[in-house]
């Protein structure tokens, strides 16, 4: 790791709490061995190529004193803004630094906080003290998590007070501008009792000449009866390697849903965990990916039922073409005493080319007896009979194939809670299929 | 087809032993067996482990990871868990230099 950056984490300007946690994470990072492909969790993604030394770390990225003018934003970001119906709040992050952050004044008055982490450390240290980096991260993820924390570039906190319902989505656009950097971003979402919000984290870049790394941590903490829809849209260009670690912490009667879309990057490793901690908690976990070129997607999911009477439902669907490959490794874990659990897990894969490859490992670990748990996984191709039928109705083979791929994703897209995002993702997939 | 190129000197390979080399970014394992030198792709067809970490056993190269074995001449899989052959390369010895053609 380059001197001056990671050997001595530069905590100048960090609020104390951040500095402490960063230092602890750095110590942990150095003490842990790098996981190798011999460990099950990293069997399909080789962290040896993570090579943090080879990148310029953007630590303590700046918060712009003045919000960036729309004209100064990258074209792709402007396009997204134009199509966004996120009047709840918007943040534009460029290489981990905050270029613009807006929150509707009505929500400010209601006590909603939407701010860079560093800023909140000064205003509400007790919130950070309690929640920041406090999720239960699995041992095999700790090395990467520690790196993420130690190398934190920036990130935001969204705090929604009791019984406040933010009707429009809060939209965060994270732009990566150049090769050669490692950016580490964090999303801390705290939603009090009975409150509701939908958050969109959108990751973008152009195709880069060279390689860049994106580390991302997400922590969602719900209060009793809260409802959060969290959407992660990964639309990086070529050259990016993206590592996302998402933790939803769900107490009594709380619903935390997640929706991951992966279309971009060369490599995207995504760990999605729902900790079902209270009775009546609920988590719907959805994802879709469409891989081309030599893209590699590696999804790890955990539905951890630590309390009785909770429900989780996971549906992950991926289609692959060219030389793309994907891994799904999912686990439902039901602790002893977590009776009356309802947990489902489905992974379906569509292989559209001879050189694409899908690996799926849906697992169950069940230590309570009064449960309903099932899982299913399939890997297959576009149905020849359906193709034949459609071509006999006058469609070209390409058109028919495209239609069937959409049919395949339709089941997931239909459950997308934000209409405008559904439309944009549909367009993006359409462009990518390009059949 | 490309030309024969020198990848090692004969004395670098132990008798009835293995020796890894690289040519144009391709990992190759040289095997010296009964006075002859043969060249194979240095990657087991089972889990892509380098064959050069393994051993020569009864004229076959054995992967150390799970014991898969391959014929030195044809690259054919001779023991499970491998089911696919590994690629072989033309190989000759000229004036004590081992030459391989990709």
């Amino acid at each position, binding site marked *: 790791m380059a001197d001056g950056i990671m050997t001595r984490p530069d905590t100048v300007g960090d609020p104390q709490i951040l500095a402490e946690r960063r230092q602890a994470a750095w110590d942990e990072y150095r003490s842990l061995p790098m996981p190798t492909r011999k460990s099950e969790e990293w069997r399909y993604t080789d962290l040896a190529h993570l090579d943090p030394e080879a990148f310029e770390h953007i630590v303590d990225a700046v918060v712009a004193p003045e919000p960036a003018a729309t004209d100064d934003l990258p074209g792709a970001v402007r396009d997204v803004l134009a199509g966004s119906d996120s009047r709840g709040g918007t943040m534009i992050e460029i290489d981990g630094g905050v270029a613009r952050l807006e929150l509707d004044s009505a929500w400010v008055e209601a006590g909603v906080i939407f701010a860079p982490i560093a800023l909140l450390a000064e205003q509400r240290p007790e919130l950070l003290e309690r929640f920041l980096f406090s999720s239960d991260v699995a041992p095999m993820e700790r090395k990467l998590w520690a790196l993420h924390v130690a190398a934190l570039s920036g990130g935001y906190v969204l705090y929604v007070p009791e019984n406040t319902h933010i009707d429009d989505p809060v939209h965060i656009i994270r732009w990566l501008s150049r090769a050669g950097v490692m950016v580490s971003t964090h999303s801390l979402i705290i939603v009090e009792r009975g409150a509701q919000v939908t958050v969109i984290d959108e990751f973008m870049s152009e195709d880069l000449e060279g390689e860049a790394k994106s580390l991302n941590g997400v922590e969602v903490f719900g209060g009793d009866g809260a409802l959060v829809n969290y959407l992660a849209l990964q639309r990086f260009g070529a050259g990016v390697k993206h590592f996302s670690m998402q933790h939803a912490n769900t107490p009594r009667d709380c619903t935390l849903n997640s929706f991951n879309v992966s279309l971009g990057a060369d490599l995207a490793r995504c760990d999605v965990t729902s900790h079902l901690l209270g009775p009546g908690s609920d988590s719907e976990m959805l994802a879709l990916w469409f891989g081309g070129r030599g893209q590699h997607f590696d999804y790890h999911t955990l539905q951890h039922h630590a309390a009785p009477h909770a429900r989780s439902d996971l549906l992950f669907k991926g289609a692959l073409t060219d030389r793309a490959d994907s891994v799904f490794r999912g686990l439902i874990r039901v602790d002893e005493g977590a009776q009356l659990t309802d947990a489902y897990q489905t992974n379906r894969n569509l*292989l559209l080319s001879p050189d694409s490859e899908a690996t799926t490992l*849906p697992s169950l670990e069940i230590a309570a007896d009064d449960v309903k748990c099932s899982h299913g996984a399939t890997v297959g191709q576009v149905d020849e009979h359906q193709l034949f039928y459609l071509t006999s109705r006058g469609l070209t083979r390409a058109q028919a194939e495209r239609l069937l791929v959409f049919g395949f994703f339709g089941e997931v897209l239909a459950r997308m809670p934000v209409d405008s995002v559904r439309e944009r993702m549909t367009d993006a997939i359409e462009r990518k299929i390009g059949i | 087809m490309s030309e024969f190129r020198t990848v090692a000197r004969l004395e670098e390979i132990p008798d009835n032993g293995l020796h890894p080399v690289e040519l144009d970014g391709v990992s190759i394992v040289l095997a010296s067996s009964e006075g002859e030198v043969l060249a194979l792709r240095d990657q087991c067809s089972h889990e892509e482990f380098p064959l050069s970490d393994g051993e020569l056993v009864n004229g076959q190269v054995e992967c150390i990871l799970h014991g898969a074995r391959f014929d030195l001449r044809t690259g054919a899989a001779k023991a*499970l868990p491998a*089911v696919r052959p590994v690629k072989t390369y033309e190989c000759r010895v000229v004036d004590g230099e081992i030459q391989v053609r990709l």
Partner: protein
Amino acid sequence: MPKNETVDQLGLDEYKYDFRTEDAPVYKAEKGLSEEVVRQISAHKDEPEWMLEFRLRALEIFYSKPMPDWGGDLDTLNLDEIYFYLKPQDQMERSWDDVPENIKETFERLGIPEAERKILAGVGAQFESEMVYHSLKEEWEEQGIIFESIEDGLRKHPEIFREYFATIVPPADNKFAALNSAVWSGGSFVYIPKGVKVDIPLQAYFRVNAEQMGQFERTLIIVEDGAEAQYIEGCTAPVYTTESFHSGVIEIIVKPQARFRYTTIQNWSNNMYNLVTQRSMVHEDASMEWVDGNLGSKLTMKYPSCFLVGDRAHGEILSIAYAGDGQHQDTGGKVVHAAPETTSLIVSKSISKGTGRSSYRGLCKVYEGAVGSKSNVECDALLMNETSRTDTYPYIEIDENQSSIGHEASVSKVGEEQLFYLMSRGMSEEQAMTMIVRGFIEPIAKELPLEYAIELNRLIELEMEGSVG
């Protein structure tokens, strides 16, 4: 079971194979594993030099490989406390009358001569480390079938033996395959010539009698083109407070158009570690079926596998596991599709009761080029108590888009409605439970030979005893 009959009236012992005969071996190696022990085993078998070399190399591989960090808990398995070789008699017998009294008594209690009087094509019996008895009906011998102890296979048919031995499960495959390769003793050598069809099973019984015993049988089966046969093995041991250890390796080659079925009814006592590698290579248009019943042992780790290397080869694994108090059944199956149009099916059913834990672990791999391959995996787990546990770990690796792969698994407890219904028809809760469990495993139990199906049913009744209330 008639509805007025209770489990008690069946009069079954807790574990009916818990008896032992006096320990009178003609040779017993020192406790623990060493090069010396390996050399002694080889010397006792008067083997060719190459086999001793093979063993010694395997021992090195065993030492070099780490213990698996997945599956069951192996911490309490202390290999220093195990006897790796125990020779019960000087020679193997062909006539039942010549088997020593104490051993004969054991097998009579297990019902072996009885079974043979029935319709079996051949019977083998292993006691501790050696096959003590092997016989094949004349009519089959005349057709060229070879059914011998593995040692006699090596002695009498060295060429066939050497051509196939350790090509299906090489020593380096896994730590316990390496161990078996170093200390193997006993097991069967089976050769079914081209076109010969044996419609009745060959059967082998494996008995561990002594305390702290390790049994390491090695079986090699070659089924030539167009031949058909099946093989059944049963395993039992007395209960000891110390640990016993069984680690077998089974290698099967099924040639083009041939069919073979291998059935295991594993009913080791609950102090047995059972770590077995069973693998088959299936050629074009051939079919291999594993029927795997794991009822006994403390910990079993066993995943019968089919490598489908020829076009249109078919593999099937039917697995049933029962994990009672303190037991862990880590079982499943592997199918590797390496040729076009290959098909496979895995059906796994497990029951966990008390503190029992059953884990399904499986692999379905499709290589690029295995166009048109189809595989389906179904796993069902039944949990009887709050303290029971089940896991499912299927690995699915697909490198060919022209294929169709499916996996489904479900976990459930015995349904209240079903129980209520049956009890309203006059059954006790225990009887109702028994019936539900029987129904659950029925799809696999019906694949078993009659005597084993009956035994399985009895076992379930026995295990259900006291499960209520």
